[in-house]
């Protein structure tokens, strides 16, 4: 038993960390956040050049065959650097749905285009009324002359503003909240009837609301199987939760270190404020909670990998159940610890922590945003309780 990274994993980690340190300082980030795209295509091309966009894809699809642990390694460093590029939305979620379904071979070309940085994608699965419930889908897709006609609206779609291609969940059967009857459609973002309104979020990331008005989609442009998109989507979201947890962990570590360093230089009453026991114990609480989050992240990432490696279907199902619980637990903890670490970092920075000029507040806002993605603390806690208490 060991929790050490392999040589290859260490190389990836160092590569991401070094690139961001050298090329992505806080001023650079501010400019990128203010741009129309919301991220930098130049950096994205560099990510492609450095091979990072290939990491999660299977080797026969031109990737490195990475798993949830590898996702986490990249995301933790992107978190520390507070990078705005859509690694999560485009590579892990959009790419993951294309590559991990039964029909991956049909998407070979598009996957290659993700890897070389020429294709942007987004997964559109939230609706105004759905809150965090994946199965609550009002967007309809009705069959007419061999084509599906999509109508509805998807909201807060990450990377929606930049996406060339969209994966959209729509109802092909069943009632509004049924898990069956949901189909994932593969739609060109420029298709007739697709309109986008994009806007910035508090963390500097841009998202879009996407309206679908009689959008015609050929029946072969389906990801996975008709009516059975829910499980695919849920699995992709589980992996995305682990990835965002890793990003959050990177942010928390950065905030902890920044705060410890600040309290050692900031003097009041003639001494560094870090010498006060009241503050020391609060920073220790931050540390303990961050370490606990790392432990749960390792647990979730490892159980996700184990579940997907199991060949026997019964074992696989059992492991998937375990992995689901681990992931929900992680989601709860990331929300709680994110809030704690963010608030404490601001408090211990005092007045300067309130300023837009300092990076601390921007890290905090990303943590708050992460809590609202894929289910917040309460939602995840209730789902977890259902898994353990029935």
């Amino acid at each position: 038993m060991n929790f050490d990274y392999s040589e290859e994993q260490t190389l990836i980690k160092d590569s991401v960390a070094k690139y961001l340190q050298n090329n992505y300082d806080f001023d650079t980030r501010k400019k990128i956040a203010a741009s129309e795209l919301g991220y930098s295509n130049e950096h994205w091309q560099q990510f492609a050049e450095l091979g990072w966009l290939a990491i999660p894809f299977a080797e026969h699809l031109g990737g490195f065959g990475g798993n949830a642990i590898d996702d986490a390694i990249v995301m933790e460093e992107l978190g520390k650097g507070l990078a705005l590029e859509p690694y999560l939305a485009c590579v892990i979620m959009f790419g993951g749905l294309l590559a991990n379904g039964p029909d991956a071979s049909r998407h070979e070309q598009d996957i290659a285009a993700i890897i070389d940085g020429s294709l942007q994608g987004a997964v559109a699965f939230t609706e105004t009324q759905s809150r965090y419930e994946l199965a609550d889908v009002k967007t309809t897709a009705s069959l007419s002359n061999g084509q599906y006609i999509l109508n509805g609206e998807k909201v807060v779609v990450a990377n929606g503003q930049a996406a060339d291609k969209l994966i959209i969940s729509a109802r092909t059967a069943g009632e509004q909240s049924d898990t069956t009857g949901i189909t994932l459609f593969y739609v060109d973002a420029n298709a007739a009837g697709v309109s986008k309104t994009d806007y910035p979020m508090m963390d500097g990331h841009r998202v879009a609301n996407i309206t679908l008005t009689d959008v015609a989609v050929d029946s072969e442009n389906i990801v996975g199987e008709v009516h059975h998109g829910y499980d695919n989507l849920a699995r992709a979201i589980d992996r995305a939760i682990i990835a965002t947890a890793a990003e959050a962990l990177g942010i928390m570590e950065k905030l902890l270190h920044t705060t410890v360093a600040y309290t050692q230089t900031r003097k009041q009453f003639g001494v560094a404020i870090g010498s006060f026991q009241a503050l020391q114990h609060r920073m220790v609480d931050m540390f303990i909670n961050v370490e606990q989050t790392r432990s749960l992240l390792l647990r979730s990432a490892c159980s996700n990998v184990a579940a997907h490696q199991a060949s026997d279907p019964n074992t696989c199902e059992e492991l998937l159940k375990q992995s689901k619980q681990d992931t929900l637990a992680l989601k709860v903890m990331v929300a709680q610890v994110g809030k704690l670490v963010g608030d404490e970092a601001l408090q211990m920075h005092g007045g300067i922590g309130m300023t837009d000029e300092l990076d601390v507040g921007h890290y905090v806002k990303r943590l708050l945003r992460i809590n609202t993605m894929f289910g917040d603390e309460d939602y995840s806690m209730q789902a977890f309780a259902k898994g353990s208490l029935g």
Partner: protein
Amino acid sequence: MDITFSDSDQAFRTEVRQFFAESYTDDLKQRLGSSATFSEAIIDWQKVLYQQGWIAPDWPAEYGGTGWSSAKKFIYETERAQAGVPDVLPFGLKMVGPVIYNFGTDEQKTKFLPAILNSDHWWCQGYSEPGAGSDLASLSTRAERDGDHYVVNGAKVWTSYAQYADWIFCLVRTSSDGKPQQGISFLLIDMTLPGISINPIIGIDNRHTLNEVVFDNVRVPVDGLIGEENKGWTYAKSLLAHERNAIAGVGDIKNGLSAIHEHAEKTMSAGQPLTRDPAFRARFSQIQIDVMALEYSELRTVAKSISGQGPGPESSLLKIRGTELQQRVQELMLYVAGNFAGAQTSDSIGNDFADRARVEYMYGRAATVYGGSNEIQKNIIAKAILGLG
């Protein structure tokens, strides 16, 4: 990264599980559960472990330990707790034993180690004093050399199970020169010596676990001194790191949670089982989530120790979070017990859950105090890990 146990470790797990299933009998379980029979029953159980050769997982094989790998020790501990089996008394096996085999003379090893292993000697710990708690180095129990003896005067307090003990290991002051830590010696004292008296202290759990031990001109043979005079603080510190590691208690927390789950299913509230109640569900889930994380924090320490890195200041993290979670489990037990929570009986009303809840809750308050209070652990992390002066 590899989180799997080897095949031989898996086989070991099966062996341990089978052993507990067969050897930890209902009779033992019942006698250990009652304070009237506890002291006898725990010795009976420890003798069973001794026969099996598993009494001292942490000891080196040359002194009668198992010689298990860190992975096997972890598995053993997990299975023990899973089976609801109480841990051994720590004072001889986990505290003074390691001090003796690390720092004692050959005569001391021969005299004491076998009797610790077969539980013939019951040990207690003489560290805290009325005036020395977290600031242990300020202790003032004096030992003055007089020929072949030390003459000991002073008082030790919060001494668990002193009423049953044959021996006590004590920190005593042998010098007032230099820093307080520099004048402390580690002394082994026979509890039957004249001049020792034991004053019982009844705890908030209504049980008699704690005592004050008073020394009035007690003449202790000098061969009870561990290592060198005035170096006792060093030996004591090595023991504290050991103690801290042992009290994360993940297995026991999980065992407590299963007991709560089982009882909550049978407990009705507003016409439905308590497990349907949203407030209960959130409380229960929160503890589960935190213990899932703690379990991996512990595994990370195990993995480090497999690769040869000893426990560092992160054992303070395990102590803090482990004891906090133990207390939250106890709190939830008391909550689930409801109206019965205060009942000071188990036999006559057939609700032994409530009695267990009350006793464990009250006694459990000590966990964040002993072994170096959690505030002291935070000071250690602040200094050793965060570099805050």
